[in-house]
C-alpha cells in the first residue's frame, strides 16, 4: 500500500524529469532541424508504421519537417510557458493572498474582491483578446497567462497565511519587536511555502494546457514555432487519413501535463499542502 501511495510522486518525477532533460538537451541531440522543410518528404509515417524510416523516428509533418525535432522543441516551449507563467502568477497571487490573510479587515475584503473579479472573467476569451491586440509571440503568451492565472495562489496563500498568522510563534516574533516585513518574509512565507509548491504544479499544468489551447485557436505561439497545440492545429486537416499526425503531439502534451499533475499529487501527500481546487 505504501508503494502504491508513493507511485504518483515517483511517476511524476520520472515524467517531469525526463521532460526537463528533453527540453534542455533534446534540441541539440536530434539529428534534424525543427524548421527545415523538405516537400519531397511530406508525411513520412513514424518508424513503427508501414513506410516509416529510421531517419525520422516520429515521421514528418505536412511540410516535411522532422516531427521528433519539433516535438522536442515543443516540450521546451511548453515548459518555458509553464515556468514563466507560474513564477509570474506566483508573485502576484502570493503577494495578494499574504496581504489579505495577514492584515485582514478591509485589505482582505479588497483582495477577495479582486479574486472574485478575476474568477468572473472568462479567462480564455480574455487571453485570446489580449494576444490579438498585443500581437502573438511566445513572450506575449507567457506574460498573458502569468497575469491571468494567479487566483489559486491568492486563495491558497490567503487561507494558509490566516492559519499561520494565529500561531504562537508569530505572536512571539511580534512581541520580540520584529518588524511586519520580517514576520511576513521570515515567519509566514517559510511556513506556507509547501502549499505554494503544490499550487505551482497545479497552475503549471493549467498554464501549459491553456497555452496549447490558445495556439490551437490561432492566437497563441505563432508559426513556425513548434508549439504542441499549434502542431495539432496544423495537422488536423490531415487527421482523417493519418491519425498519427495529431496523436503524437497530443500524446506528448497529455503525458507532460499528467506528469506535472502526478508530481503535484505526490508532493501534496508528502508535504501536506492543499491545492485550493
Amino acid at each position, binding site marked *: *500500500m505504501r508503494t*502504491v501511495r508513493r507511485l*504518483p510522486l515517483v511517476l511524476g518525477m520520472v515524467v517531469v524529469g525526463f521532460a526537463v532533460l528533453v527540453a534542455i538537451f533534446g534540441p541539440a541531440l536530434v539529428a534534424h532541424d525543427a524548421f527545415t522543410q523538405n516537400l519531397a518528404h511530406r508525411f513520412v509515417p513514424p518508424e513503427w508504421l508501414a513506410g516509416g524510416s529510421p531517419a525520422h523516428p516520429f515521421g514528418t509533418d505536412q511540410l516535411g519537417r522532422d516531427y521528433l525535432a519539433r516535438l522536442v522543441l515543443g516540450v521546451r516551449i511548453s515548459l518555458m510557458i509553464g515556468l514563466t507563467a507560474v513564477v509570474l502568477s506566483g508573485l502576484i497571487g502570493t503577494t495578494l493572498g499574504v496581504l489579505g490573510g495577514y492584515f485582514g479587515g478591509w485589505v482582505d475584503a479588497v483582495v477577495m*474582491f479582486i479574486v*472574485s*473579479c478575476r*474568477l*468572473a*472573467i*472568462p*479567462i*480564455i*476569451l*480574455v487571453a*485570446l*483578446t*489580449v494576444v*490579438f*491586440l498585443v500581437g502573438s509571440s511566445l513572450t506575449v503568451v507567457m506574460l498573458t497567462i502569468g497575469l491571468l492565472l494567479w487566483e489559486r495562489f491568492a486563495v491558497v496563500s490567503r487561507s494558509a497565511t490566516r492559519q499561520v498568522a494565529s500561531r504562537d510563534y508569530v505572536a512571539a516574533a511580534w512581541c520580540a519587536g520584529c518588524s511586519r516585513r520580517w514576520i511576513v518574509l521570515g515567519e509566514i512565507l517559510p511556513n506556507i511555502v509547501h502549499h505554494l509548491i503544490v499550487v505551482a504544479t497545479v497552475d503549471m*499544468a493549467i498554464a501549459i*494546457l491553456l497555452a*496549447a*489551447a490558445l495556439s*490551437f*485557436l*490561432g*492566437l497563441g505561439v505563432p508559426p513556425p514555432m513548434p508549439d504542441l*497545440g499549434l502542431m*495539432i492545429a496544423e495537422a*488536423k486537416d490531415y*487527421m*482523417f487519413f493519418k*491519425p498519427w499526425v*495529431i*496523436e503524437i503531439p*497530443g500524446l506528448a*502534451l*497529455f503525458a507532460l*501535463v*499528467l506528469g506535472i*499533475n*502526478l508530481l503535484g*499529487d505526490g508532493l501534496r501527500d508528502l508535504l501536506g499542502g492543499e491545492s485550493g*481546487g
Partner: protein
Amino acid sequence: MRVIRSREGGPYTVLRFLLRSLLLGALVCGTVLIASFLLSRASGNLAINIAGPEASAAAIAKIQHELGLDRPLPVQFYDWAARAAHGDLGRSFLFHEKVSSLIATHFPVTFRLGVFAIVLALVIALPLGIAAALVEGTVFDIAIGAVALLGQAMPSFWLGLLLIIWFGIDLHWLPIAGVESWTGYVLPSFVLSFVAIPVILRLTRSGMVDAMRADYVRTARAKGLSRASIVLKHALRNAAMPVVAVSAVQLGFILGGSVVVEVVFNIHGLGYLAWESIGKGDFPVVQAVVLLFSLIFVGLTVASDLVSALLDPRVRGA
C-alpha cells in the same frame, strides 16, 4: 422572513445575506464591465481594423467619428454602459447586425451545451465519487482517483479531435460537426464535461468519506438500517450539498471555456462567435460576450452561495 444566526453569532437575515452577495456580484460585474471596455479600446486600432490596412488617414478618421471613437474614453464608456443598460449592446462592426440579436441567436446553443455537459459530469462523477469513498484506501479508490487525474490532464481540443476520428469517421455513430440534431451535442458535451468531472469527483469522495465517519451514520448503522439506506439517504444527503454549490460554479467555467470545443466541433455558439469576432477585431461583440459570461458566472456564484446558505443548517441556525 426567517431570522438566522451566523457561525460567528449575531442575528442576521437570509435577506441581508442575499443583498450582500448581490451587491458584491454587482460590484464585480461593474469592474469587469470597465475592464473589458478598457481592454477593447486599449489597442486604438479599431478603425484601422474596419477600414483595412490600406485605408487613407481621412477614411480612418471618418470611421472613428462615425463610431464615436474620437471622443474621450469616459464619454465613450458612459455612452456604451447607458445603452447596454437598456439592452442595446451596439452594432457589430463586421456582421452588420445588432450585437443583441447576434447573442440571442448564438446563446441557446452554448447554454444547451453547458447544461448537457454539467449533467453528464454529475452522472459520471457522482457514482464514481461515492464508490471511491466506500472503498476508501483500496486499489479501486486509487484507480478512480487516477480517472480524475487523467481527466485533468486531457487537452480538450485533442480529446475532441480523437473522438471525431473514432466515433464520427471510424464508427459513423455520431456527427463530426454542427448541432443540427441532438446527436451533435453528445461528443462536445462529453468533452466539456471533463472540465468539471475531476472537481466533482474529488468533492463527492471527500464529502462521502467524512459523512461515512460521522456520528449520524454510526447511529443509523446501530439502528440496523440497510447499507443502501445509510449511503443514499443519510450520507449522500450531507455530502451532496457542496457538490450542488460547486456544480453551479463549474457550469460558469464550462460556459466560459466552451470556445475551444465549439471551434473543434464547428458549433456556432457564443464561444465560436467570440472567437470569430476576436480574430476580426469586432470588439462590440467580444465585449458583450465577455460581459455576458461574467454576468452568468456571477449569477451562478450568488445562486450557489444562497442555496448553500439556505440548505446548511449551521448557516440557517438550527
